[in-house]
């Protein structure tokens, strides 16, 4: 349950969402990746009010958002390649471009030789990397990640953070829900949104000098 949230995310910002388990981090992320509507209030993304937008309008916005789910949500019967290719194919990209983009991305997350493996045959860390590759392959404008380094070792966590930072430099707004303090410490420019019991804790202190607004949320859910 979220309540009395009122904040703006800047285009191109890098945010960590922290707080104890049950604080509402995943609920807030769901609002941000348009998997849920707020029961009260409003949510605005890409300059559009989407809290009550017709559902036919949502796919267009969802294509601009990359999501790394906590439970990965890979399609079990598809190969790693097909899972990563899914956003590009849904967006109608040419198959030749899909092929090269996906090969490149799988190589980047260290899974070039596991392209034809299906999720049940991949380790937790490999599945997480496939999920991250799928989230970033379409160069989203907003990337929402729920514990993206929860199942990988420190070295891979560093590579993933490096990938997300690079994506952020290209203009993607990034918001990561995490308990991993080392991840936050390794990203000095990032801002922190701290939630507790569904509300922001010290919002003015946490979001110091927010940049110019791009996305905003004022919601109860």
């Amino acid at each position, binding site marked *: 349950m979220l309540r009395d949230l009122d904040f703006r995310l800047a285009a191109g910002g890098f945010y960590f969402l922290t707080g104890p388990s049950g604080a509402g981090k995943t609920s807030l992320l769901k609002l941000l990746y348009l998997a849920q509507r707020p029961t009260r209030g409003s949510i605005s993304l890409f300059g559009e009010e989407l809290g009550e937008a017709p559902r036919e309008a949502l*796919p267009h916005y969802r294509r601009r958002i990359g999501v790394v789910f906590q439970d990965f949500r890979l399609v079990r019967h*598809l190969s790693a390649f097909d899972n990563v290719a899914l956003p590009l194919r849904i967006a109608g990209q040419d198959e030749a471009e899909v092929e090269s983009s996906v090969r490149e991305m799988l190589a980047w997350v260290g899974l070039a030789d596991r392209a034809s493996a299906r999720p049940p045959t991949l380790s937790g860390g490999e599945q997480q990397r496939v999920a991250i590759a799928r989230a970033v392959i379409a160069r989203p404008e907003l990337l929402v990640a729920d514990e993206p380094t929860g199942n990988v070792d420190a070295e891979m966590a560093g590579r993933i953070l490096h990938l997300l930072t690079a994506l952020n430099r290209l203009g993607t707004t990034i918001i990561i829900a995490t308990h991993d303090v080392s991840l936050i410490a390794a990203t000095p420019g990032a801002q922190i949104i701290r939630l507790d019991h569904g509300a922001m804790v010290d919002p003015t202190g946490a979001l110091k000098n927010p940049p110019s607004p791009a996305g905003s949320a004022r919601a109860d859910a």
Partner: protein
Amino acid sequence: MLDWLAASPAERRLLPGGRLQGPTPYVIAIMMFVMVVIAAAGLALANAAGVVAQGVESRFSVQIADGAAKAPLALRALAGAPGVAAVRPVPESEMRQTLERWLGPAGAEADLPLPALIDVDLKPGASPQAVAARVEKAVPGARFVAHEVMLAPMLRAIRSLTWLSFALVLLIAAATAAAVVLAARGALDTNRSTIEVMHGIGATDDQVAGLFQRKIALDSLTGGLAGAAAAGVVLLLVAGGRAVWVEDFAGGPLLEIGDVLLLAALPLIGTIVATLVARQAVLRALRSSL
């Protein structure tokens, strides 16, 4: 227009399980078999009723109860009557032959009194009442009977059976549509997690529905063609053997070329209906989610 049917290999991989997996194509094959056979029977009955009705439309009989002695009077009256196309006295041997079929050898015995019967064909537009009055005047007590009236109960029965068969075809079509809806919902439930992922990364309802409608269309087409082919074989066997007497009775072929084309089109019509029904079922189910 039909490009949605040609899925890319990647799209085909999205829904696990190839064609002919699951009961849908087999259910549709059985339904289509029954539908084609019943539709063929209905069309044949409709044709038979039409031929019989047309054949007796202008045919009448003069019945003279007390024997053949007065028959020449009636024949003379009919010969000069306006609107009469043909007159044929029914030979006594023919009547006795008919009676023998019903009564056994007793029907052929010469001491069984028979009425005189004269078959009369009228020209189109002729007045049966005028002809009947002329016969009655020549032979008082003679009956002028329309074959149409005699065969009316049988024609009514045939027409009822025709409508019954068409109603059955509609019922089977409705049952098939219900089976398709169940199959589509089952496929949706089975692939719920895939659909959620697709929606989450921006797939439209049309894109998701397209996957299911393609699968249902191919299952329906495969099942429908198999069922219709099996029905065609059965109908050919029936038409080549035991149904010949029906053709004799009807006075023409049971199925016209148009009927055969209509029956052949049933799998295609079925596929279109099944695809639309599946699409609507999937879209309705998808609309219940965000």
